[in-house]
């Protein structure tokens, strides 16, 4: 357990992604089965210790600590798990058992006995082990490590591609003995049922205007680029699952989709919300995404559906090697056989040449707020990853606005001594109101200049944040603008980045809040 506690602490406090991966690799290489498999399950949120809830831990502590002192402490620390770990008043000599023994113990102790068992464990632990123990027991890690990062470490450690690991991942169970055996070359790749597993997605490459000269429009098909999230629907004998593009299962958040899908196979599409297949904004979708478990009211107001654009398995048959055109025909036939209320087909856009499509793209952006169009080679097989030459995304030109720098904050990791996170705003009457925040889009050289400018033009400091003179103008590019209660301006930008630093431009000539209305209309 000590080793795992050390790992969690390092992951929580090390800003560098590379170092996190190194630490994970070391752990997975040096710690034996089954402990490393349990750790992997904890880090990827595949482990659920059902009976241990925060309330139970709290009651266990309140049996030992005065309630008022606990409340004052919680107010100060701000995190229940950490308060419990820090305040536990007993210290016994002893060592915690290994991770797998610990998890077994917690899972096989009756609810009535749990407080005593947890109390005993807390007493045996050193202070930072208590912290890890509480995180383990409640399953709420919140240390800034994603499941994908853990899998990336497995890939780097073994030399096996991340995609291959993701492909088998959903057929595996903790403590993953067969996975580690495969990664270490001691056994063959685990054999998992396709119907229960996620298949890594095929991704597209951006296309530039100049690329079109080399491409014959007759070889390609086009569709709108939908502004939702990419999902895969796996319909097997055991039921229907839905996965995000990184292979995280999100079925529990969208029972209105997975509970209403008919048929068998594996489909690729875009998750959207709205009534009668009329997609609403990404902002609305986000309200559903933020919930781990769906709520009835939201499902009524923001029903989810999936706009399907590809098929990987037709029933049990793997059709990924077929060309796009044949897969599309299979998909349309499948739709004709299986009537759907939560799936619809992404429409094919007819076009003659690239100029036609360009006009369509601009019209779609202006009239419907479409992000752009997808262009797919008719003969392309379905290849996981980002193969060259098969799928292209042709995004509409970004929106830009001239905004004034308001606040700067220090960055993380290598940038921690630089002011690299910028909040900017536009004029509302005589004041500037914030519309967004960005931390990339500039070169290292520009970062140095900005850092210097900020230090020389600071008007106030609040912890890591500096307020600066409202004099520097950024040209900010963004994908879309939404109404939002988050900022005083009532406007929030999607995917903002600094496209140019306008050292030359006077702040008085920056945009006004009224100018933002034009962008709000388009989405």
């Amino acid at each position, binding site marked *: 357990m000590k080793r795992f506690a050390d790992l969690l*602490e390092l992951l*929580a*406090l*090390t*800003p560098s992604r590379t170092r996190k991966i190194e630490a994970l690799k070391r752990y997975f290489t040096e710690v034996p089965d089954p402990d490393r498999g349990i750790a992997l399950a904890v880090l990827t949120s595949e482990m659920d210790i059902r009976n241990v809830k925060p309330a139970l831990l709290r009651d266990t502590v309140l049996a030992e*600590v*005065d309630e*008022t*002192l*606990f409340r*004052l*402490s919680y107010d*100060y*620390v*701000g*995190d229940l798990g*950490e*308060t419990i770990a*820090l*305040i536990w*008043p007993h210290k016994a000599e002893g060592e915690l058992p290994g991770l797998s023994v610990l998890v077994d113990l917690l899972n096989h102790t009756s609810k009535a006995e749990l407080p005593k068992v947890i109390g005993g464990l807390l007493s045996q632990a*050193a*202070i930072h082990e208590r*912290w890890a123990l509480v995180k383990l027991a409640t399953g709420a890690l919140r240390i800034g490590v994603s499941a994908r990062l853990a899998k990336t470490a497995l890939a780097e450690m073994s030399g096996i591609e991340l995609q291959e690991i993701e492909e088998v991942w959903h057929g595996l169970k903790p403590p993953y003995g067969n996975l580690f055996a495969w990664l270490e070359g001691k056994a063959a790749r685990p054999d998992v049922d396709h119907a229960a597993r996620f298949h890594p997605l095929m991704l597209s490459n951006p296309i530039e205007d100049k690329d079109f000269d080399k491409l014959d429009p007759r070889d390609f098909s086009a569709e709108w680029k939908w502004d939702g999230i990419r999902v895969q629907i796996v319909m097997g004998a055991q039921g229907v699952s839905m996965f995000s593009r990184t292979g995280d299962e999100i079925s529990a958040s969208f029972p209105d989709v997975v509970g209403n899908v008919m048929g068998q196979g594996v489909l690729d599409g875009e998750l959207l919300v709205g009534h009668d297949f009329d997609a609403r904004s990404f902002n609305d979708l986000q309200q559903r995404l933020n919930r781990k478990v769906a709520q009835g009211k939201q499902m009524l107001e923001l029903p989810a559906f999936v706009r399907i654009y590809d098929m990987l398995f037709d029933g049990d048959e793997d059709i990924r090697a077929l060309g796009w055109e044949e897969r599309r025909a299979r998909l349309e036939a499948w739709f004709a056989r299986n009537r759907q209320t939560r799936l619809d087909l992404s429409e094919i856009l007819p076009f003659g040449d690239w100029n036609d499509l360009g006009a369509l793209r601009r019209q779609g952006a202006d009239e419907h707020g479409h992000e752009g169009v997808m262009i797919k080679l008719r003969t392309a097989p379905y290849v996981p990853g980002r193969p060259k030459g098969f799928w292209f995304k042709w995004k509409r030109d970004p929106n830009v606005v001239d905004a004034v720098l308001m606040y700067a904050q*220090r960055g*993380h990791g290598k940038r*921690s*001594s630089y002011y690299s996170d910028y909040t900017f705003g536009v004029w509302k009457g005589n004041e500037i109101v914030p519309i967004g925040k960005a931390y990339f889009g500039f070169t290292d050289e520009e970062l140095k200049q900005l850092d210097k400018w900020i230090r020389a033009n600071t008007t106030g400091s609040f912890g*890591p944040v500096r307020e600066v003179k409202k004099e520097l103008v950024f040209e900010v590019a963004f994908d879309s603008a939404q109404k939002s209660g988050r900022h005083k301006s009532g406007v929030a930008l999607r995917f903002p980045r600094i496209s140019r630093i306008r050292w030359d431009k006077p702040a008085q000539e920056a945009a006004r809040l009224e100018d933002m209305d034009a962008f709000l209309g388009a989405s």
Partner: protein
Amino acid sequence: MGFIIDRNLYVPEIDAWIDPSEPKARAIITHGHADHARSGHGAVLATPDTIEIMKVRYGEDCAGQFQGLDFHEPLTINGATVTFFPAGHILGSAQVLIEAEGQRAVVTGDYKRLRDRTAQPYEAVSCDLLITEATFGLPVFQHPDPKDEIARLLKSVAAQPERSHLVGSYALGKAQRVIALLRDAGWDKPIYLHGAMTRLCELYEALGVELGELLPATGMGKAEMMGQIVIAPPSAIRDRWSRRFPDPVVCQASGWMSVKQRARQALVELPLVISDHCDWDELTVSILESGAGTVWVTHGREDALVYWCRQQGLNAEPLALPGLDDDGGEGGE
């Protein structure tokens, strides 16, 4: 019942203030941190070490006159007697015992009970009225053994020989304690100092605290600083000053570092829970040991400690002293 000290830490019998935040004609100073020792007083009564520290920090003429008083030496002025007892916080730090009208009142200043060879060791003093600090006055504060924390630092240095370790420490007290702990753990390489540390380290050495070889951190090449330990003020370790070091590991030595959320927010990669204040258990033990029937609580999280005292049947109340902020300030850790 009237007390021989008032709630602003003024002692009428001898017309003197203890650790006043503004210039006063007569001041008794518990220790050299800026939230306790200010410049500009008329006359200052303090331990000889504290007077030396004040002179180094604020200049020889930072008070109209100084009177040094050794630990355990009673000094009677008018009807009251003042005696200093070691507080164990930093070099020269004292608890102030005032005796008058048959009453004993102790102002602890900042204090800790853990052994620390850079400060005279704490002694319990019995009294009727105890005025205690409460910087870490919540039961979540349970300071670990500082030797274990230093061992974590040295382990990290050994594991990452290509990086510099920058240990954020306040220039007075914490820096010298961390250096002494490193020496006692067997670290005999030079320790590199930010310029703000130099004079106070020299003073500690002159007053008999051995710190080993100390070198300025500036002017060294990046390659030379690989695997080295640098002590700097917390404000410097994440700022421009740190760019001169190879891929620095940001460490911070402070009692606050036990709260990992805080360490994360402060972008500290290696938190070292090394405190120069009492933790919760030490505070409560000290209150009981003093035998005081009345406890005034100041400097920090007063609520919890006042609540606890009242549960023990003691008279207790918080003092809201002007100019003493709990966090962030130098004396706060």
